[in-house]
């Protein structure tokens, strides 16, 4: 079969007027990295499942996307992650939901599929399973990003939920630079990044 791989990184109000050249370049770089990672797996004879897992992990590890490291915040200020995987050959499937300490949820979803008799695990149970399977667990602070935190503050002010990539207009070139600030949540020193995102579609 003609090996092929397709990816997405979320949808929303993504328009040129909301994008700076630096930001667009950063997104394109990670998306290209994800494509090349999965392609390399397929090219050397790896399975489609291996390619999907490796590709999604690249995007999970990037703070640009609403998954893994770039996850958005719940109302309570937590990062809750979900993931799923399905094998077209066997129709087997695996999923996890509402986890807060699993670094790469896609890999645990695959373990649910491959190493358990179940399809979906949630919350602490899913995390216990991940630990038993040797998956990498992290402190919830790992998922903290300033842009997502500010997105929550904005949503709290507006009292509504937000969808993935609904972005605020880019700052004008003469806009004053933001100063470093201390996060009220983690105490970490925060730098304003070029990736100033607003609302995120879930």
């Amino acid at each position: 079969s003609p090996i092929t791989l397709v990816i997405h990184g979320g949808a929303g109000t993504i328009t040129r007027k909301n994008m700076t050249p630096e930001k667009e370049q950063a997104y394109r770089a990670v998306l290209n990295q994800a494509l090349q990672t999965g392609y390399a797996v397929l090219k050397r004879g790896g399975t489609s499942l291996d390619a999907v897992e490796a590709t999604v992990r690249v995007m999970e590890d990037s703070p640009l996307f609403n998954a893994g490291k770039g996850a958005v915040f719940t109302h309570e200020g937590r990062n809750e992650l979900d993931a799923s995987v399905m094998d077209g050959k066997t129709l087997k499937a695996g999923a996890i939901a509402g986890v807060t300490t699993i670094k790469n949820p896609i890999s645990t979803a695959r373990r649910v599929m491959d190493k358990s008799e179940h399809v979906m695990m949630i919350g602490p149970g899913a995390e216990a399973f991940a630990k038993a399977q040797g998956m990498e667990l992290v402190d919830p602070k790992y998922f903290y990003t300033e842009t997502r935190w500010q997105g929550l503050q904005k949503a709290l002010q507006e009292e509504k939920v937000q969808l993935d990539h609904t972005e605020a207009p880019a700052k004008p070139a003469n806009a004053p630079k933001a100063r470093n600030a201390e996060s009220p949540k983690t105490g970490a020193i925060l730098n304003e990044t070029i990736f100033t995102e607003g609302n995120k579609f879930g």
Partner: protein
Amino acid sequence: TVGCVALDQYGNLAAGTSTGGMTNKRYGRVGDAPIIGAGTYANNATCAISATGHGEYFIRAVVGFDVSALMAYKGLSVNDAANEVVMKKLVEMGGEGGLIALDRRGNIAMPFNSEGMYRGYIKADGTSEVLIYK
């Protein structure tokens, strides 16, 4: 939300989706990403799907399975089936977002009804494309 669908040299399809959910969500809300048949679906007989968008609508429309069912029962191509679901069914319901789809012949579809969607593909010969806007 991020996702990937792939076809390997053995003719097997797979799909995966991962998400951080929705900003300001409460009460343990779960969207479509971990719901098999909604945000993620794969069947060698039809296609592999990963979706992104307003999850509640994707769950109610059973988006992933619906694309597959249109191919299986109605004989639609992956492109026609994906467009039918995203550009018609979801739009009529008011659901915003998109999906990526891939069939066993390597045909792809990446429809979305929002203003933009981060997306890309790479084919057997290594040619690739990354797209963002409409």
